[in-house]
């Protein structure tokens, strides 16, 4: 499982106007700053701090994550679909890297 692998699950088929649930998982360590005696012992941290989702290019969902989201973050969110299309989910890592996944919703 390489870091940044994005896996999306959507219903195979949807109807016009239906609210579908998009589930997305990204392989990521969600590193936490390590503390000793109340002081950080290492400055390195690397976690997903933002998630953005679009449907057919239009932004439908956004989340700000912290280090208090579990390793290998799972996010589920709703999208009301009025036409078939593509869900695209982008994860933003604190290093500046992004990881993207896509899934098709058919009618």
């Amino acid at each position, binding site marked *: 499982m*390489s870091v*940044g*692998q*994005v*896996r*999306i*699950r*959507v219903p*195979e088929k949807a109807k016009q106007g239906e*609210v579908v*649930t998009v*589930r997305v998982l990204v392989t990521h360590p969600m590193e*936490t*700053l390590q*503390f000793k005696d109340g002081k950080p012992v290492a400055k390195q*941290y690397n*976690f*997903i*701090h*933002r998630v953005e989702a679009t449907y057919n290019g*239009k*932004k*439908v*969902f*956004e*989340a*700000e*994550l*912290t*280090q*208090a*989201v*579990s*390793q290998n*973050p*799972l*996010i*589920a*969110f*709703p*999208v*009301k679909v009025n036409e078939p299309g593509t869900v695209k989910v982008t994860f*933003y*890592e*604190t*290093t*500046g*890297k*992004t*990881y*993207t*996944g*896509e*899934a*098709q919703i058919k009618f």
Partner: protein
Amino acid sequence: MNSMHDTSRRRALKLLGAAGAVAGAISFGALLPPSAARAQALGMPLEDEKVADTMKRLFGGRTVQDAGERIKVDAPLIAENGAVVPIKVDAELPMAPDKYVKNIYIIADKNRRPLNAKFSLTPEAGKASIATNVRLASTSDVRVIAEMSDGTLYGVTREVKVTVGGCGG
């Protein structure tokens, strides 16, 4: 315990087709000017803070109304493992263009940095329903707060007990 091997709700997954897994590791530095790259990479670890300060920082002095049954939180009463605590939120609140659930916050009182995550929705979402897995440092009240587009706040609090010890299950 038998729910562990309940196989009644299986669905065929279109893993190989629909869920196109793209392992894109694109450096913003390569695509954007340096200032934009910095602006995107805003994710900093939060400062240690007390939950009262978190609430003040996020909501100012605004009152959080008890959501009662309108926000349903599905979280375990007892978490065997604080590192992965599944939380599902279903808010039965308006999702109309003039008034909708704009943000859902998950806040764990006892965490060193209480804010777990903030989810932002639009009226196009159709319903205010999200799920994720969070980390809890210890047994803690977990607050789920829905912020409406007009600034109204609704919240519910659930205690999740985190077990430690034993042989680790």
